[in-house]
Structures are given as structure tokens and as C-alpha cells.
């Protein structure tokens, strides 16, 4: 299906168009309109892909394949299953708040900003679709460069350090994954005599247990940096805090999900035996992440930093779910990823709006905002509660399924994870209390005009996000049905790739 590469090419082309449209004196909002058109077209395209998908013939829904570097067995191959589809929808949906709410007010060089934003989205879409490991790695690296420039150019006060930290961590772990990919390819070549980067062919490679473990760890390192898993998370708080709002939303909402996606698609499905032997370590890391992230969230004064650490905590559940070894845990992990993307993306928008209005992210200098900014504060309260996992929201479904699946294999880990939920209630409510309730901060509102509240534009977009979270919380069945990843072996109808 030619529409799969189009999903990648459309945002890239739209980004170029937005960049080119930024010419002339009256062009202030033209790139923004081009970007909006692009994401609307992208939504329509994704809708048509969803409708035209090959429903009912096995778990794989759409395919595309074209030769790229046949001399080394590299093809431009993309395949879509339910998991890809869910995450593609998440990407597309979250691109709306990014563009509509936060990218419009970029003062400096809006054309370049939109180009980079859309290029990142294109790279992420490619990551979710590619089933040739070289192509996957190509997109994996490609999505970093525009994000690096976004942080560097439009970030906050300490952006240089944050940007380079982000890049070095992700790129360095990516190189480890590259070595692991190539190790798998070479082992496959030794076994069969064919050099190929095809996901489905490589999944058949017979592997010694040690080799499988080493290769799996190479993949795990890259995805663990992205997700992030606790000892490798140090880039995340800085990067999220320093990135411009749209960058934070993209990072927390989608970019982190590529780590979860990679864990499912590559670590668990390519190396099932090694992954099951690795389970105790992964579960321990997941529980450690949940508690450590929550604990550090409690101690933050910077509101964006608090949300960033809470991401570390919430995505620990994804690690637990992926490695729980049961379909229920896997589904829970996917629901958790989607719900976390929506709620944390929205929280970053709110934090960014607060920073625009109050010129600070420090919660010690906020307080009593409910009177001045009732709309913003109520929306903030909603997403904070969603993020702490109140029943009825998507986050609750995800965390509940994950804990249930974890309980079956390790009750202590499940208990630790549940303890993390308690902490998450504490820091979420503390954040709401410090920012929105309580006495107004002294110097605020006296020497400045009162800050403007959310208008119709923000309320519409965020309201739709709320609705999605509620739907996900009350009727998660469609996502649950889709989210079980297709195994690479369930690929009967495709012809063998050209060696």
C-alpha cells in the first residue's frame, strides 16, 4: 500500500512547504496555516489507511515494500499492525495541540520551527512503520536531529546543555542498537547465507542463548534510554524542562513512546527467550523507575521538571507491562502509553502556558491562580487527576491492567508499583494545590496586568483531549483489541523478500 510511505512523506513535504512559505513581510502566520493544513491532510490520510486496511486477514493490516540498497539486503519495507496504527493515531492526534496551541506563538522564524516540528513527526511515523531494521534505524536517528535543533533554538535558559545531553544519550544508545542490529544480521547471514535487514526474516534467526541475550541488551539499551528506564533517564528532566512547549509535548507525548514501541516490537518479539530470561531485571527496573520518578517529583519546585519526573514514573508501568509476559500486560502497557501521551502532553501545554503568562516555572512563585485563570486551572486539575490514575480515565485502565498482569508473576513488584500510584496522587495533588489554590503569590498580579485565561482555541483542543481520555477510560475495548502486537511469524501471505 503506497499510503504507508505517504504517511512519512506528507509531514516532511508539509514541513518544507511551511518553511518555504515563510517569506515576505506579511508571512507571520502563513507557516502555521500550512502546518495545520498538513496535519489535517495527515489525519485524512491516516483515516483512509485505517479504512482501507486489510481487516480480518491476520494481524498485519497494510504493507509496503520497495528496493533501496539491494546489494546489502536493505529494502524500504513498511508494515502496519494494530500497535502501529494505535501509535500513529496518537502521533496524529497530539500533533494538533502541538501545532494549534503552542506553535502559533513562535516569534522567531516560524517557518523553520514548523519544518522541524513536522520533520520530527515524519521521523516518528517512520519509526512506527518501518519493518526493515536499517530503515527503522534510519528513522530512529533522523527524528533526533530536528528535535535537537528545536530545543537548541527555541528552548529556555539552559537549552545548550539540555540539547547536547539529549542528543548524546539518544545517539550513543542508538549506536549500541546499531551494533546489535548488525550482529543479528551477521548471525542470520552465518545461518542462512543471506544478508538481509528484513524484520520477518531476522525473526527466524536461530540464536544461541548468550548471543540472543547480548543482542537483546543492545536493543534494550536504546529503547531504555528513550522510554526512559531509571539509570538511563538523566537526560529527560533537563530536556523536557528546557524544550519549547511544542517540543516538550512531542517529547513526552510521542517520542518517549517510540521506546515503548521498540521494546514491544523488537526486544520482546525478536528475542522472546532472552526477554523472558531478562524479565526479573526488567521488572525490578520498572518498579525502581516508578518509585524513583515519583519520589523525585515530590521534591520539585519547577513545574515542568515535576511533570518530567512523573513521566519517568508513569512509563515504569509500560516497562512492567511489556515484560509481564502476558497479553493483558502488553495491552495495559499500550493503553498506558496512549493515555500518558494525551495527559502528559496536555500537562506540558498547561505548564507552557503558565510560563508564558507568569514568566516562571517555579511553583513557589505561583499560587491562587484559580481566581485569575479559572479555565486554565480547571483544565490543569483535570489532567493532573487523569495522570494520577483516577478511575474513568485512560491512565487508570492502563495502570490497572499492568498491575494485574504483574501481580500474577510477581506480587512484590506489583505492590511496589501500587505504592508508586499513591506517591503519584500525592505529587499531582501537591502540584495542583501549589499552583492553582492557596493564597496568591505576593508579587503576582500587582505590578502586571492580570494574565489572560485560556480562550476558545485552547479550551476546544484540550476539551477534545479530555474527551478522548474519558473515552479511553470508559470504553477502552477498541484500543485493547488493536494493541496486541502482531508477531513477526504471522506473515503468511507476503512473498519472501529478495535476497
Amino acid at each position, binding site marked *: 500500500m503506497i499510503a504507508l510511505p505517504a504517511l512519512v512523506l506528507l509531514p516532511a513535504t508539509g514541513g518544507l512547504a511551511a518553511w518555504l512559505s515563510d517569506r515576505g513581510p506579511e508571512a507571520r502566520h502563513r507557516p502555521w496555516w500550512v502546518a495545520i493544513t498538513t496535519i489535517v491532510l495527515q489525519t485524512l490520510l491516516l483515516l483512509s489507511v485505517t479504512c482501507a486496511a486489510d481487516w480480518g486477514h491476520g494481524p498485519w493490516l497494510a504493507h509496503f515494500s520497495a528496493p533501496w540498497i539491494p*546489494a546489502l539486503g536493505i529494502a524500504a519495507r513498511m508494515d502496519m499492525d494494530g500497535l502501529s496504527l494505535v501509535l500513529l493515531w496518537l502521533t496524529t492526534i497530539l500533533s494538533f495541540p502541538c501545532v494549534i496551541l503552542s506553535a502559533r506563538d513562535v516569534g522567531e522564524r516560524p517557518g523553520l520551527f514548523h519544518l522541524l516540528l513536522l520533520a520530527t513527526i515524519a521521523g516518528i511515523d517512520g519509526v512506527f512503520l518501518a519493518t526493515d531494521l536499517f530503515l527503522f534505524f534510519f528513522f530512529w536517528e533522523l527524528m533526533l536531529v530536528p528535535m535537537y535543533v528545536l530545543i537548541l533554538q527555541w528552548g529556555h535558559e539552559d537549552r545548550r546543555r539540555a540539547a547536547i545531553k539529549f542528543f548524546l544519550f539518544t545517539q550513543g544508545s542508538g549506536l549500541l542498537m546499531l551494533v546489535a542490529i*548488525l550482529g543479528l544480521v551477521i548471525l542470520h547471514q552465518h545461518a542462512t547465507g543471506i544478508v538481509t535487514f528484513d524484520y520477518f526474516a531476522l525473526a527466524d534467526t536461530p540464536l544461541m542463548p548468550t548471543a540472543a541475550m547480548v543482542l537483546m541488551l543492545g536493543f534494550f539499551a536504546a529503547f531504555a534510554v528513550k522510554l526512559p528506564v531509571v539509570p538511563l533517564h538523566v537526560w529527560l528532566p533537563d530536556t523536557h524542562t528546557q524544550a519549547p512547549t511544542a517540543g516538550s509535548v512531542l517529547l513526552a507525548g510521542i517520542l518517549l513512546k517510540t521506546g515503548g514501541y521498540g521494546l514491544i516490537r523488537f526486544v520482546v518479539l525478536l528475542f522472546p527467550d532472552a526477554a523472558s530470561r531478562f524479565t526479573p531485571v526488567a521488572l525490578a527496573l520498572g518498579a525502581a523507575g516508578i518509585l524513583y520518578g515519583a519520589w523525585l517529583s515530590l521534591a520539585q519546585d519547577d513545574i515542568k521538571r515535576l511533570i518530567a519526573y512523573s513521566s519517568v514514573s508513569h512509563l515504569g508501568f509500560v516497562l512492567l507491562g511489556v515484560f509481564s509476559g502476558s497479553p493483558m500486560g502488553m495491552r495495559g502497557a499500550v493503553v498506558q502509553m496512549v493515555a500518558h501521551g494525551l495527559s502528559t502532553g496536555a500537562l506540558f501545554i498547561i505548564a507552557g502556558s503558565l510560563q508564558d503568562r507568569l514568566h516562571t516555572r517555579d511553583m513557589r512563585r505561583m499560587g491562587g491562580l484559580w481566581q485569575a485563570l479559572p479555565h486554565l486551572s480547571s483544565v490543569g486539575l483535570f489532567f493532573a487527576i487523569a495522570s494520577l490514575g483516577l478511575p474513568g480515565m485512560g491512565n487508570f485502565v492502563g495502570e490497572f491492567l499492568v498491575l494485574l498482569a504483574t501481580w500474577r508473576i510477581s506480587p512484590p513488584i506489583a505492590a511496589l508499583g501500587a505504592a508508586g500510584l499513591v506517591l503519584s496522587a500525592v505529587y499531582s495533588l501537591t502540584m495542583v494545590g501549589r499552583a492553582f489554590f492557596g493564597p496568591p503569590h505576593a508579587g503576582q498580579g500587582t505590578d502586571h496586568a492580570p494574565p489572560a485565561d485560556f480562550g476558545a482555541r485552547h479550551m476546544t483542543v484540550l476539551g477534545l483531549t479530555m474527551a478522548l481520555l474519558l473515552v479511553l477510560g470508559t470504553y477502552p475495548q477498541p484500543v485493547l483489541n488493536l494493541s496486541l502486537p502482531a508477531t513477526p511469524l504471522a506473515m503468511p501471505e507476503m512473498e519472501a523478500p529478495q535476497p
Partner: protein
Amino acid sequence: MTAPLSGLPPSLPILGGGIALLMLSIAWRRSEARAIVIALATLFLAFASLWSPVLSWPGDPVGILFVPDGWFAYIAGLILLSSAACAIMAWREAGTPADEFYLLLLLGTLGALVMAGSVDMVIFFLGLETLSLSLLGLIAYHRIQPTADEAAIKYLILAGLSSAILLFGLALSYAESGSLRFAAPSLAGPDGPALPLAATALVLTGLFFKLSAVPFHTWLPDVMEGAPIPVASFIAVTSKIALFAALARYFAGADLLRPDAAGMELAIIAVLSMFGGNLLALGQTNLKRLLAGSSIAHVGYLLLALLSPGPFGLASAAFYLAAYAAATSGAFAAMRGASGLSDIAGWRGMFRRRPALALAMAVMLISLAGIPPAIGFFAKTYIVIAGVSARRVVLLVALVASSIIGLYYYLNVVRAMMEPVPEDHRAVRGTQANTVLITALAIVTLLAGLFPEMLVRQTRALLQPLPVLRAASLPPIAPHDILYSE
């Protein structure tokens, strides 16, 4: 002796003819325009001649001096193209009088070609010295500047020293084997391994000095900083390609996977070069010195490819050389396009002052750092394929770790270019020819990165017997067996 295998690649007499013509032209009347036209025409003619059959004569009395195989043709192509790039960069920059600059450039190119194609110690050494001596003249070409003198003296002393070491190694090798064949002597000789080991170690030391691998690299940053930009590019690209080609030939028959002394030495030098080069570049404020460090690190990556024989080893090295040549020449051309601005602080705000130039520079740096979509990404992947295939675990770990260091300083330059325009910036400009060169190199770097298939086929073909040899109705021989067929 298999005489038909020997023969003179036509590119060598063409270059010789071009040099003679240029000398005549200078003797008649000086003109930079005529000099560069003659130089470029010679280079392109020599490039075109790479596809023509080899000049050979039956009953060759001298023995095998050159092996014009696929490896030579490929390397020669890279050498000629990168020399042409240097010549274009030198236009209106060479100084007055400018004519001899192009003469020396052609002479150096001739030396590089001779080195890349020779399998005889004497011929190899002649090529090496031709290259070294013309480089000396090129480095000191702006002789009014004190830095140029300093760089030339440093180069002179170290080049002389390393030539002496190399020559001693070659002599020991001859004493051991009784043959002037330019190849690592076999350790299984009658007199035990001591003599061949010493010979190999000395030859390697000499080659590594010229190739500026760590720990023989200390001259390179100083020399490159003092030399004019086209010459710095010539040192970093053309001469390194030729030396690496010669190194590959020297070890063509040796089994580098065996953990013997030579393999160990190469591996240690490779690791040292990766880290040493990247760490050296890390703290630099001068772009030329940064590129010097980067080129040392790239020698380390190339040694990894050399140390990984098998279906990918030499092919990946060949691909990497092309990627490295395009990106490094491009970076120097971009510096030339910015009035030779080599201070990194001076590049601040370049994205707003000269967006196209800054973009080209960014493409080159991204390629050197190995980030997609530039060609350096695929090149590095290819080398890692070779390394994984040969199970070079330690070297791969070193490559990954040192590449991360590399990312930092390449991106640092990109970041400086994105900063706001400083108050005290001065206008920069280059020549039109140079702009064409930068554009071409940037397009090559991007397109070959997106569609590397053609170049991959080209480099893989190096492992096949040459069509020219088959036409002479010879049994098919792998190119590197040729060196050993007495």
C-alpha cells in the same frame, strides 16, 4: 614472472604530461587562469583514463611495478577528484605567483597515484617522497606568514624522520625476504620471526607517521593550522587516501584476524586513533585543528575496516574513504567560502549571515558525525557491519564510545552557526568556482547518503577480478592474490 599483470596505468603518463605542459606554460608566460585550466584538464583526463585499458608490454624486463587493479582504479578516482577539489579551492587563494601551486599540486597527486598503485618498494618510496616533497612546498607556499614556515619546518623534520624509519623497515624486509615486493613479510621465515617483525613494525611506524595515526599524530594539527586551506584539505584527504590504500596493499595477503604482533599493533593504533583524534578535536577553537583531530579519528575507523577482512572489510573501507573525502573536502571548501575563516567563534550566526554556506557546512559536519541522511551515516554503518562480521568487539566498543565524543564537537560547530549574529562579525566571501564545488559536494553527500546503492555496488566490485585482466585471457584471480603470484 607473470609479466602481463604488470603495466602502467595510463593516468600516470597523463599526469606526467600535464606537469610538463604546465612547466612549459609557466616558462612561457605566467597566468593563474591558464595554470588552473591545465591542472584541472590533466586531472579530469587522468580520471577519464581510469576506464581505459592498461598500457602493458610483453616480456616486461623490470618485473611487476604497478598493479592497476580495481582497488587502484577506485583509489585513483578518489585521489584525482579530491585533488581537483583542492585546485578549485586554491583559485584566487594560492598567492602570488600562483602557477607553481598547481604544479606542486599535480606533482603531489602523481606521487599519491604512484603510491596507491605500486607493489614494489622502490616505486612506492618514490611515490611517497614525491608526495612529501611537493607537500612541503605547498605547506610553505604562503611563505611570508610565520605560521607557514613553522608548519613547513615541522613537516619537513617529521616527514624526513618517518621516511628514514620507513626506509629502514623496507631494507630489513628486503634483507629477510630478498624481494622488493611491497608486502608484509611472512613471519614463518627460516630465521625466526624477529627480523620480519622488526621490518613490519618499522614500516608501519613510518606509514603511521604519514597517516598521522595516534601516537604519531602530533604534527598534524600544527601543520594543518599553518597550511593554506587547499593544502590542509590535500593533507587531510588526498594524501591520507593514498597512504591508506598503500597500507591496505601492504597487508593484502596477511591474515589480520590472527592475533599476531602486526594485527595487535594495528588494533591498538586503531583504538588509540579513534579516542586520541576525537579527544584532540574536542577542545579545539580552531576549525582546521578540529578537522585535523577528526581526520585522525577517521583513520582509526578505517583501520577497523582494514582489520575486518571478509566480504565487507575492504569494500566498507573503500566506501568510507569516499564518504570521508566528500565530507572533509566539503568542510574545507566551506571554510574557503567563508574567506578562510577558521576560528569557530567566527562562524557564530552563520545560519543567518550566509544560510546556504552554513547549511552546506552543517551537511558536511553531520556526515562526518555519521548522522542520517548524510553519506557518513551509511559509511559508518557499513564499517560496523564489517566489524561485526569479523567479531571485532573491542574495536566496535571503541568506535561507539569515541563516536559519541565526536558528535559533541561536530554539533558544537553546528550550534555555533545557529547562534545569533555577533556584533563584530565581518563579511565573508568566496569564489564562484568554490561555491559550485561546495554545492556539488553537499548534493553528493546527501544523495549518496539517501541512495548509496550505486557506490555500494562499485565498492563490492573491488572484490571481483578486473575485466581488463580477464580480457587478457587470464584465469580469474582475486585482486589481492595478484600480489603473491610469483
